């Protein structure tokens, strides 16, 4: 068996020297079962089985109605945290590449501090200490709602990781692109927005999508704050009914479906965002 035949199909397109002893290379269609996406089949089966349990099994149904309301928190926290983290990441990523000494060092410090502390520790510290302290210092009379404290914690954490994604993406654009823009008379800002960032997006989007999904999954860490998201709901259901299996499996089911849907969306979005790559995949 040739392990490379599926991985590099374009090789078979090239004319091959006609050696008499050279065996005819198999085409992809001969051994379709080698390239068939069986993983989809396995994942799909799991989803279907879990779905059947949730629909037909009484315990799972009870777990579902206890857990599912948490989806509102989970989804709104995911989107809010991702939006804030992307803006923070863009600022810190461009800050690192800035000529300005202050921006550069602030960005670097932010990233190093966040990356140097475990995520769950940061969630505790930011949501329970930093945000209340800052709001008190700013003289805000009421305490910040738990939802926003949780979202800010997650956004601050992921902002630092996303900053590195932006930095890498911007640096992946050849310097000649900037020179071409500037030599046409485009300002620094126009060059950045019309030339560098759109091209950087190509290498930024896939890892950014990964982090979007990672944020969705990491909202489960917010359960330590006592907010009513999916994980917290599942644990409460387990604690009050002792139907641990139904609770945990139902929770897995909800997360899995959410993540699968989100990654399908990201793949579609990436394809849509790079029309010049049409026909490449």
């Amino acid at each position, binding site marked *: 068996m040739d392990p490379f035949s599926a991985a590099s199909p374009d090789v078979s397109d090239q004319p091959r020297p006609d050696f008499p002893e050279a065996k005819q290379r198999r085409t992809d269609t001969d051994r379709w079962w080698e390239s068939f996406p069986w993983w989809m089949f396995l994942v799909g089966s799991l989803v279907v089985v879990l779905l059947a349990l949730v629909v037909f099994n009484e315990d799972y149904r009870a777990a579902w109605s206890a857990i599912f309301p948490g989806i509102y928190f989970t989804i709104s926290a995911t989107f809010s945290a991702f939006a804030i983290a992307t803006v923070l990441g863009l600022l810190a990523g461009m800050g690192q590449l800035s000529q300005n000494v202050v921006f550069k060092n602030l960005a670097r410090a932010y990233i190093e501090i966040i990356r140097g502390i475990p995520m769950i520790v940061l969630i505790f510290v930011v949501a329970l200490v930093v945000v209340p302290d800052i709001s008190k210092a700013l003289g805000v009379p009421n305490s910040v709602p738990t939802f926003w404290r949780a979202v800010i914690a997650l956004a601050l954490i992921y902002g630092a990781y996303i900053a590195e994604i932006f930095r890498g993406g911007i640096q992946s654009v050849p310097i000649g*692109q900037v020179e071409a823009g500037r030599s046409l008379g485009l300002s620094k800002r126009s060059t950045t927005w019309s030339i560098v960032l759109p091209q950087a997006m190509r290498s930024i989007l896939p890892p950014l999508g990964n982090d979007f999904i990672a944020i969705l999954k990491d909202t489960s860490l917010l359960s330590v704050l006592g907010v009513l998201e999916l994980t917290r709901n599942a644990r409460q259901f387990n604690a009050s009914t002792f139907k641990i299996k139904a609770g945990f499996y139902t929770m897995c089911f909800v997360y899995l479906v959410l993540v699968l849907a989100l990654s399908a969306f990201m793949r579609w979005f990436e394809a849509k965002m790079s029309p010049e790559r049409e026909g490449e995949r």
Partner: protein
Amino acid sequence: MKIVEVRGLTKTFNETIHAVRGVDLSVAQGEVVVIVGPSGCGKSTILRCINLLETPTAGDVWINGVNLVDDETDLDLVRAEVGMVFQQFNLFPHLTVLRNVTLAQMKVRGRTQEKAESVALAQLERVGIPDKANAYPRQLSGGQQQRVAIARALAMDPKVMLFDEPTSALDPEMIKEVLDVMRDLAADGMTMIVVTHEMGFARAAASRVGFVDEGKIVEIGTPAEVFDNPQQERTQLFLNQVLHH
């Protein structure tokens, strides 16, 4: 008045690498100056200093009477008057050919999309590829890409065009199509400064040929003077190497 006036241009990298050591050059309207010289002699750096892609360590560069080295000068405005064509084309890969040519017209010249597109199509016609307006750069050959790059620069109505080894990254069969476009431009009276290894182009199209070595213009004169009767020993040595092989 001269379109380009360079006085005492010096460029030193990292305080140790002396790329350009005191270059004077003035280029009049409609002149085609071709700069030749061995690799690493500083000829590209001279060109890149003329639109300040490199900041000169010392010396002055005037474009149409405006000193680029002056801090008061709005560089973006002057750069719009100086077209630049790069060795690696540097087309914007995420934009169609048409958008490549209209982008700066709209953002810098403030032209409407309609106006910019009609200028773009006229320039693409001029370089011989009007039918590729809606293609993306990666769908074009190197020669076609370089011609789009020339059209992109021309669309800004530059006072002078700089060419930085425009054919060095091309396959041999595509060099001619680009040189033909440049020859037509020269015949139309465009002021051009061209860094190249194409001696045939230099001889045919140049008003003057400058030979650069070790960051200085060693010799400058008409193609006949420089190619047929070089005065400097270094020029003779270089021409011997490139012309007789």
